[in-house]
């Protein structure tokens, strides 16, 4: 036996090992493939042997071959064999091979489960380690499911080496088996505070990776991370945390404010550039997330920009690159602070590193002004010439166009220069962006009337030299510019100097090689050109010349008729026939010019993309009205529910209708005209979009263009944009001189040389530069009576729509974070005061809206703004003031009430001052845990608190939107309300319970049970056991069996009560359900101890899955309109309670919030933990109340209504 072993190992010595294999491959450079296939054969032989060492050697070689690109999946089974070797050496080889080539499709992978489990529990930490490492690469959903609990145990291993690997691999497990996240998370969180820095770092790593995908779920960890950030010294960990905060701040702006200070400190103190950079990045993210209203932001921005400048100036290219990258983020929100570093950015344009140049280009976009545009573009043009790679050149090209055309050509003072730039760009070969240039040419030529003459001359030159542009037609998109050139020359042919020549150019046979859509434009515009030539010649009475042109057309057009492109063919055939007809008539001596040009009379104006939407609905036209009577059968029963929310509907209709008030309309039109008159870039577009004949009386509407003749319109030779730069400089200089000194022209010429030097001095400000031409940029055509609106994308019919985004987000936030609810109270503090100034500051928008004729609508808008403001306020409250209102709101919302003595109040406030708001939730829970309470006492306190609040809420009476629960004192006193219901009672103990849902966990509810000892015995060993149903399960400590009870974490001396919380997992929330359970405990008194039991039934009502969620009326209206909700209604008779109290009751017991209240009618909203929307309309009649509900789930709605019926029946 021993001999055999020795023999085996001797054999092995002469086997090829990895080194031999590598060496062999290197020695067989010519026939490498052959050699390797030979080796693979050998390996196959080796794998057949029993000796595990031989196998391991073979697998090791296979791993190397895998790297060279050879498929080794055929050896998967052998790899598993080697993985299961007892020796670490071989095991490692096996796991390495597996990690390199196993994936989810590997079928033998399921065979590894037990082996891996064995290795995970191996006494040797390296066996475990190697298994974890391997598993991290090839974990499959099955493996993850089967091994999750093993790995979870390893997270608490004694060796940090194992712990950190186990923690890290959990991320992979979560990915493959998401169900494991919830149970594993508490432990993972624990590991954030592991004594070993490696484990800690691994936990941070995993949580950051998780949070990056779903940041909102991890907001609650912010305080913990905050602590880590301020305590950790591990840069790697710090970077991860800081990056994570960058992802969290957009969700919770107040977090950002808290972060700024420590981050700024880090920026100042750290010496590690990587950390500094990430800090700056996160500060930027914070600044972006915060509204810019805060005054002390500028300091932080300055700090960031200043630090970034240091990075950019660094000789290290990496830092330079990252600095520019971060700078561009600032640019988006704070362009001014970046602009001062223009010099630096321009410098970076010259960098030899393409990545850096690209980043600098991004930055340039935000930096141009009227003054420096030409200079910057000139610089870019030289780069275009130099650029060798097409990618970079294309990037340059798009950037040039972007920069020039941004905000409606705001920075262009000389359009001739711009056209020349565009023409120069057409000389780029192989660019993909021909269509971009073409679009710019068209846009400029159409919208800037003054430039048309120049543009036409340039375009005709381009057409003449089409062979240059189109030389490599098929390859690239630059020939697209011919599309623009042809169209411009045709459309504005009256400006052509030599139309005949252009016509010839457009009829060249070479044209037929162009893409079809360009040919089509050629054909169409040839006729336009032809029409204008005809006219010229007939006016000059050159009948023969006219006939010659017609002849030319007849000769050349057939080449297009034969085109394979349908469009070209069709157009050409039509036109050919037309021209032939003209020819016939011409032969008879009939003058044709008038008629032919009438075909193209009128001007095409640019139409705004949104124009169609802006057409106002004519008076008296109801778009929603049926054109034909609807089928009669739908009218009977079904019609009824439709009318539920009928008080809403008229409002919408009204909104859609055009303003009826003629006076108001006229006034507004006047105002608009005034505004347009003051806008230099606005040309009064003609009152009607209809075609006008050039000689029609409407001529006055065409803006008269005054051309400043100080700039010659035509520059000799080919247009070189540089010449314009020079000319422009001179012009500006002259302008300045004229303005400042008013010297004589002669003198000026003499001193030209000097001037030029001066002109580069940056003395003139942007405003001083008057445009070269009195340029009118034609705005895009709008329909008559189009409603003016600030934002283009706003639908004029629904002015509330644009506010959508603003409101939805905060709403979501407030849902996640209970503390956010205090916004209500905060508004109530001083809305009237704040509203006025801030709204006015907001400039145009409110002013315009105030013009709305309808009183109600106006009022509505006011409310909206107040609400809008609320949010703004609540996000930027003075830090000290935050906790107080939040506490009050907590009470007013009433879903959770924590009992406390008056004296305890301030204590908590102090606490909250120190802690971040997000901790609030947890804190509240824990505090509740500690405190003993008596129900009645609590209720009284509640009322007291509400009373104290009263003064602050005075104004609330003016607001129709209120939370019902908040105003219980207003009318009559309500009977005290408590959400705690009796669970069970016997001589020993009384149990009351409440169920709270939290949005963070969409399938969990917390049941708080107050246990009150009513006996004289000491109660201990209390244990709550609940019989799980399929749908609802109690969350039990890990490892305990399904039927085990959950111990109550306290004992009860006689007469004392305390509260315990239990978490239940609920799958479906659409039905109410009851769970049976038992509380067992030991009652001990002087006589001895007895074992006691108390059965109970835990009732999970549907209302307990709802979360009080505020909702704005427009969002509410949209929700109702969406049609996704099903509806149902109930009616309860014999109710005497006041409407106010009814509302409060429903708000309190069923977790609704009032959206809007009009008289004895109110709309209410709530949301379930699983995101169902529930809308209610509560109407009170004489002695009855009807409740109409709409909900995304019909079953949930009917269950809710049933519950509500029960509540109402008690009223």
């Amino acid at each position: 036996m021993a001999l055999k072993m020795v023999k085996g190992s001797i054999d092995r010595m002469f086997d090829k090992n990895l080194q031999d294999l590598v060496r062999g491959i290197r020695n067989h450079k010519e026939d490498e493939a052959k050699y390797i296939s030979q080796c693979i054969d050998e390996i196959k032989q080796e794998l057949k042997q029993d000796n595990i060492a031989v196998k391991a050697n073979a697998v090791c070689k296979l791993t190397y071959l895998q790297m060279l690109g050879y498929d080794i999946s055929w050896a998967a089974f052998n790899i598993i064999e080697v993985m299961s070797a007892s020796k670490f050496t071989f095991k490692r080889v096996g796991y390495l091979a597996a990690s390199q080539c196993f994936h989810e499709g590997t079928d033998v992978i399921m065979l590894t489960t037990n082996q891996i489990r064995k290795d995970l529990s191996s006494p040797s930490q390296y066996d475990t380690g190697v298994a974890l490492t391997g598993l991290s690469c090839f974990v499959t959903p099955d493996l993850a499911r089967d091994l999750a609990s093993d790995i979870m145990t390893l997270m608490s291993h004694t060796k940090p080496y194992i712990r950190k690997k186990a923690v890290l691999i959990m991320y992979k497990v979560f990915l493959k088996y998401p169900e494991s996240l919830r149970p594993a998370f508490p432990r993972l969180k624990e590991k954030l505070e592991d004594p070993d820095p490696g484990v800690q770092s691994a936990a941070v790593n995993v949580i950051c990776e998780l949070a990056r995908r779903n940041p909102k779920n991890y907001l609650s960890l912010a305080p913990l991370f905050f602590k880590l950030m301020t305590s950790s010294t591990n840069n790697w960990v710090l970077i991860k945390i800081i990056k994570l905060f960058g992802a969290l701040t957009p969700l919770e702006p107040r977090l950002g404010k808290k972060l700024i200070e420590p981050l700024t400190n880090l920026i100042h103190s750290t010496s590690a550039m990587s950390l500094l950079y990430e800090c700056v990045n996160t500060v930027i993210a914070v600044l972006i997330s915060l509204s810019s209203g805060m005054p002390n932001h500028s300091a932080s921005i300055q700090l960031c920009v200043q630090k970034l400048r240091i990075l950019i100036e660094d000789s290290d290219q990496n830092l330079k690159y990252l600095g520019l990258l971060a700078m561009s983020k600032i640019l988006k929100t704070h362009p001014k602070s970046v602009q001062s570093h223009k010099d630096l950015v321009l410098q970076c344009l010259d960098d030899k590193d393409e990545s850096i140049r690209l980043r600098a280009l991004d930055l340039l976009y935000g930096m141009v002004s009227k003054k420096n545009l030409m200079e910057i573009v000139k610089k870019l043009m030289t780069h275009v010439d130099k650029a060798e790679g097409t990618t970079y050149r294309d990037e340059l090209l798009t950037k040039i166009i972007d920069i020039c055309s941004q905000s409606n050509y705001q920075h262009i003072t000389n359009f001739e220069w711009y056209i020349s730039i565009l023409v120069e760009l057409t000389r780029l070969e192989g660019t993909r962006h021909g269509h971009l240039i073409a679009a710019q040419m068209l846009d400029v030529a159409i919208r800037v009337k003054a430039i048309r003459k120049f543009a036409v001359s340039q375009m005709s030159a381009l057409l003449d030299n089409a062979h240059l542009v189109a030389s490599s037609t098929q390859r690239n998109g630059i020939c697209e510019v011919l599309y623009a050139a042809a169209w411009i020359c045709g459309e504005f042919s009256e400006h052509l100097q030599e139309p005949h020549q252009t016509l010839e150019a457009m009829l060249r046979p070479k044209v037929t090689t162009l893409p079809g859509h360009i040919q089509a434009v050629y054909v169409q515009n040839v006729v336009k050109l032809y029409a204008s030539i005809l006219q010229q010649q007939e006016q000059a009475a050159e009948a023969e010349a006219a006939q010659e042109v017609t002849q030319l057309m007849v000769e050349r057009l057939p080449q297009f008729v034969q085109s394979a492109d349908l469009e070209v063919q069709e157009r050409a055939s039509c036109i050919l026939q037309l021209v032939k007809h003209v020819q016939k008539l011409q032969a008879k001596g009939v003058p044709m010019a008038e008629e032919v040009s009438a075909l193209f009379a009128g001007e095409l104006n640019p139409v705004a993309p949104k124009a169609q939407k802006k057409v106002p609905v004519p008076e008296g036209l109801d778009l929603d009205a049926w054109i034909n009577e609807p089928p009669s059968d739908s009218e009977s029963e079904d019609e009824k529910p439709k009318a539920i929310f009928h008080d809403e509907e008229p409002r919408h209709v009204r909104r859609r209708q055009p303003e009826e008030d003629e006076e108001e309309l006229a006034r507004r039109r006047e105002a608009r005209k005034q505004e347009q008159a003051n806008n230099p870039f606005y040309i009064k577009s003609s009152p009607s979009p209809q075609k006008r004949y050039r000689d029609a009386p409407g001529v006055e509407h065409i803006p008269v263009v005054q051309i400043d003749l100080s700039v010659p319109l035509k520059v000799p030779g080919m247009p070189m944009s540089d010449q314009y730069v020079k000319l422009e400089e001179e012009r500006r200089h002259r302008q300045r001189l004229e303005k400042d000194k008013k010297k004589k022209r002669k003198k000026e010429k003499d001193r030209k040389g000097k001037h030029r030097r001066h002109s580069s001095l940056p003395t003139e400000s942007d405003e001083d530069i008057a445009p070269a031409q009195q340029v009118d940029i034609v705005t895009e055509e709008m329909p008559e009576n189009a409603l003016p609106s600030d934002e283009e994308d706003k639908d004029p019919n629904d002015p509330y729509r644009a506010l959508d985004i603003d409101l939805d987000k905060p709403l979501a936030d407030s849902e996640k974070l209970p503390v956010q609810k205090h916004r209500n109270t905060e508004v109530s503090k001083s809305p009237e005061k704040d509203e006025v100034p801030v709204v006015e500051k907001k400039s145009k928008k409110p002013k315009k809206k105030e013009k709305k004729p309808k009183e109600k609508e106006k009022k509505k808008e006011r409310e909206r703004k107040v609400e809008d403001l609320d949010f703004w306020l609540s996000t930027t409250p003075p830090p000290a003031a935050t906790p107080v209102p939040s506490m009050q709101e907590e009470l007013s919302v009433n879903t959770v009430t924590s009992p406390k003595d008056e004296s305890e109040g301030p204590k908590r406030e102090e606490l909250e001052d120190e802690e971040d708001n997000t901790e609030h939730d947890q804190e509240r829970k824990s505090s509740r845990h500690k405190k003993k309470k008596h129900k009645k006492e609590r209720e009284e306190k509640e009322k007291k608190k509400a009373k104290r609040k009263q003064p602050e809420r005075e104004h609330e009476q003016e607001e129709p939107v209120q939370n019902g629960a908040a105003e219980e004192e207003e009318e009559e006193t309500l009977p005290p309300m408590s959400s705690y219901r009796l669970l069970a009672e016997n001589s020993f103990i009384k149990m009351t319970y409440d169920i709270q849902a939290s949005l963070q966990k969409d399938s969990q509810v917390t049941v708080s049970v107050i246990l009150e000892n009513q006996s004289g015995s000491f109660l201990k060993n209390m244990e709550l056991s609940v019989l799980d149903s399929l749908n609802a399960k109690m969350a039990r400590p890990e490892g305990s069996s399904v039927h085990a009870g959950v111990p109550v974490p306290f004992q009860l001396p006689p007469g004392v009560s305390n509260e315990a919380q239990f978490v239940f997992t609920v799958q479906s929330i659409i039905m109410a359900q009851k769970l049976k359970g038992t509380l067992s405990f030991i009652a001990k008194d002087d006589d001895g101890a007895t074992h006691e039991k108390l059965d109970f039934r835990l009732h999970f009502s549907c209302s307990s899955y709802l979360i009080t969620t505020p909702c704005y009326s427009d969002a509410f209206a949209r929700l109702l309109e969406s049609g996704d909700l099903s509806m149902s209604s109930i009616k309860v008779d014999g109710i005497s309670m006041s409407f106010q109290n009814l509302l409060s009751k429903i708000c309190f017991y069923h977790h609704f919030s009032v959206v809007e209240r009009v008289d004895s009618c109110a709309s209410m909203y709530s949301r379930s933990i699983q995101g169902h929307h529930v809308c209610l309309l509560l109407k009170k009649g004489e002695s009855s109340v009807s409740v109409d509900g709409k909900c995304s789930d019909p079953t949930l709605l009917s269950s809710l209504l049933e519950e509500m019926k029960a509540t109402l029946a008690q009223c």
Partner: protein
Amino acid sequence: MIKAILIFNNHGKPRLSKFYQPYSEDTQQQIIRETFHLVSKRDENVCNFLEGLLIGESDNKLIYRHYATLYFVFCVDSSESELGILDLIQVFVETLDKCFENVCELDLIFHVDKVHNILAEMVMGGMVLETNMNEIVTQIDAQNKLEKSEAGLAEALACAVSAVKNMNLPEIPRNINIGDISIKVLNLPSFK
């Protein structure tokens, strides 16, 4: 997350490839080729980041360092800090230098398995496991010791045989030293 770690030489020959997402062998080779193509045409004095392309999503970046004859390329997504990864590469190379005692390309050629083992102590399943070089070296040493104790006599014999084999061959050149391996990036203190 780190998506892939590649080491190849100036001619594009792969010396180590570790993909943290499954790809077929062909795709892997293609990625290596393309990465080499992108990285190798860059000058020495340009920044070490390359954006986009290659593996999967668009927020991926290539972060690389070039040492003498070898390129070390990490493909990472946006959750990783650029400078942090550069430091990590430095730590990786320094660790190799320690474990191989003056590492050169040949070490990587002949002992790719060992390089894998070292890497496994630093990066696990695409996530950074350890950045402290001393800790990494300690673990590697301990594993090597364990390996030796398992090998015993047979392994010693094998060593001898291997030495004999080597004798027949032309001298293995050890002069392709990674000269600037010890050059630290001054403003980037390594993690500790």
